C-alpha cells in the first residue's frame, strides 16, 4: 500500500542521518563568556518564556513517545524514538541555559509548569497512547512549525549570548529533520486507503478527543500566543509560522487527503487572527476557566515529567 511513497522518500537514510547528527550537552561549554549579555531586564522578561519553552519541548517529547507506539513501519518507529529523545535533549539544553542565566532556584529544579501544561500532561498520560495516528501526526508538525518558526526565532532576536546561539544551531538542525519527517509521514498516511483515513477521522471525533482538544490544547496554545505577543513577538511571525504548515502540507501529493490536516489548519488560522470570534467565544473563556482548575485534582503525573535535567554529565 505504501510502496509508491516509500520509493520517493528514504526513511532509512533519514534514520542514519539522525544517528550521525547526534550531539550532547557535554559538547557545550556552559561556562563560556556571554552569559552577562543577558541583562536583568532580559532575564526577568525571558524567564517565563523559557519555562514555557522547556515544558513545550518536554510535552512534545511525550508526543513522539506516543507516535512511536503507532508508527507505520519499524524504521519510522525508530526515528520517533530518536525524536522523543531529541525533544528531551532540547528541554534539557534549554534548562541548562536557564541555569546559566540564573533563572533556576538554588537546587536547579525545573520551573513549575503552568496549569495548561499540567492539563496537557494529564491528557497525554491518559489518552496519548490511544489517540489515532492521524491526529497526533498532524498536531505535532503544526506545533513544531510554530515553535521553530516563531518562538525560537523570537528568542534568538532577544538574546545575544553566543552559547544560546550555539545551542540553537543544534536544536534548529534537529528541528529541520523533525519537520521533514513529520510531513513525509503525513504523505505516507495520506497515500493510504481512504476508508482507513475516514475511520481514523471518526475516532478523532470521539467525545474524549474533542473535549481534550478544546479544554486542553485551545487554552494552552492561546495563553502562549498572548504571552509572547505581549512580550513583543510580531504577530506577523506567528502568521508566517502557520503559513509554513499550510505551505509544506500543500506541497505533498497526499497530505490534503487527511481530514485532520484541514481541521488543524483552519484552527491555526483562527488562532493567529486575534479578531476571529474563535477567541471571544472559545479560547479566551477557556483560558479563564482553566485558570481556576486546582492542580491537585489532576493527580500525580507519570514519572516522565521528572526526567528533565540541566546536568550535561551524570554519574
Amino acid at each position: 500500500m505504501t510502496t509508491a511513497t516509500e520509493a520517493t522518500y528514504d526513511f532509512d537514510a533519514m534514520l542514519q542521518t539522525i544517528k550521525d547528527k547526534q550531539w550532547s550537552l557535554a559538547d557545550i561549554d556552559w561556562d563560556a563568556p556571554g552569559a552577562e549579555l543577558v541583562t536583568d531586564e532580559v532575564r526577568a522578561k525571558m524567564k517565563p518564556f523559557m519555562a514555557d519553552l522547556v515544558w513545550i519541548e518536554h510535552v512534545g517529547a511525550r508526543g513522539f513517545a506516543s507516535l512511536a507506539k503507532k508508527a507505520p513501519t519499524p524504521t519510522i518507529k525508530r526515528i520517533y524514538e530518536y525524536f522523543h529523545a531529541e525533544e528531551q535533549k532540547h528541554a534539557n539544553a534549554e534548562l541548562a541555559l536557564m541555569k546559566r542565566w540564573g533563572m533556576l532556584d538554588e537546587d536547579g529544579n525545573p520551573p513549575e509548569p503552568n496549569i495548561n501544561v499540567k492539563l496537557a500532561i494529564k491528557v497525554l498520560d491518559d489518552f496519548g497512547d490511544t489517540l489515532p495516528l492521524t491526529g497526533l501526526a498532524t498536531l505535532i508538525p503544526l506545533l513544531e512549525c510554530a515553535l521553530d518558526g516563531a518562538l525560537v526565532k523570537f528568542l534568538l532576536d532577544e538574546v545575544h549570548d553566543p552559547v544560546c546561539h550555539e545551542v540553537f544551531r543544534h536544536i534548529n538542525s534537529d528541528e529541520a529533520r523533525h519537520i521533514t519527517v513529520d510531513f513525509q509521514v503525513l504523505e505516507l498516511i495520506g497515500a493510504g486507503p481512504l476508508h482507513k483515513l475516514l475511520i481514523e477521522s471518526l475516532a478523532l471525533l470521539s467525545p474524549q478527543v474533542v473535549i481534550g482538544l478544546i479544554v486542553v490544547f485551545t487554552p494552552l496554545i492561546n495563553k502562549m500566543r498572548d504571552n509572547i505577543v505581549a512580550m513583543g513577538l510580531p504577530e506577523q511571525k506567528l502568521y508566517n509560522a502557520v503559513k509554513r504548515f499550510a505551505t509544506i502540507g500543500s506541497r505533498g501529493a497526499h497530505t490534503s487527503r487527511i481530514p485532520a490536516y484541514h481541521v488543524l489548519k483552519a484552527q491555526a488560522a483562527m488562532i493567529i487572527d486575534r479578531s476571529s470570534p474563535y477567541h471571544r467565544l472559545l479560547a479566551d473563556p477557556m483560558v479563564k476557566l482553566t485558570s481556576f482548575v486546582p492542580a491537585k485534582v489532576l493527580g500525580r503525573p507519570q514519572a516522565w515529567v521528572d526526567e528533565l535535567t540541566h546536568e550535561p554529565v551524570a554519574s
Partner: protein
Amino acid sequence: MTATTTRYDGELLRGAQWRGRAFTGLSVAVIAPGREAAVIVPEVVRTARAVKVFQEEPDWLLPLPLPLPRALAVPAARLSLRLRVRDPWTRRRLTPDARFNRHRPRVDGRYYAALQEPHCTLISWPVYALVPGGLRSAEGIEHRVDCIILGTTAAHREDLLA
C-alpha cells in the same frame, strides 16, 4: 559534529564476559534488549554500587516456565508485568511493541525486581556512542560509569565499537 572519536577507557565486557564477576563498589552500565538484560541485570545488581540499564527494546517475561501457547503466553506476561511493576511509566517502557516484537516470552522471575532496586535505573534513550569515561545517549546526557557491559546484541554494534 560530536568529538567522540576516542574510545571508552573503563572496563568493557562483551557477550558473556560479565559472568562470574563481582562488581563491588563499581558503577555499571548494561546495554542490552530486555531478553538479554533480564539475564545480566539481576546478577550485576547484587554486587554493583550503581547500575544503569540501557534497555531500548523490551521483551515479554514470564515468571514461571508455564507451558502456554503464544496466544496465552503474552497476556500472562502482560499480567505479570502489571502485578510486579507499580509505576506506569516504567511499565510502559517494559511493554514490547505488539506489532514489531516477535520474540517469545522468556522465563525470568528476577528482572523486574532488580530494576526496582534503589541503586538500579532503567533508561530507554538510544545509546549512540561510547566515549572516554562512559557513554552518550540521545537525550543529550553523558553517563559516566566504571564498567560497561555490552549484551550479545550490542557487542555486534559497529557504531559503538568503531
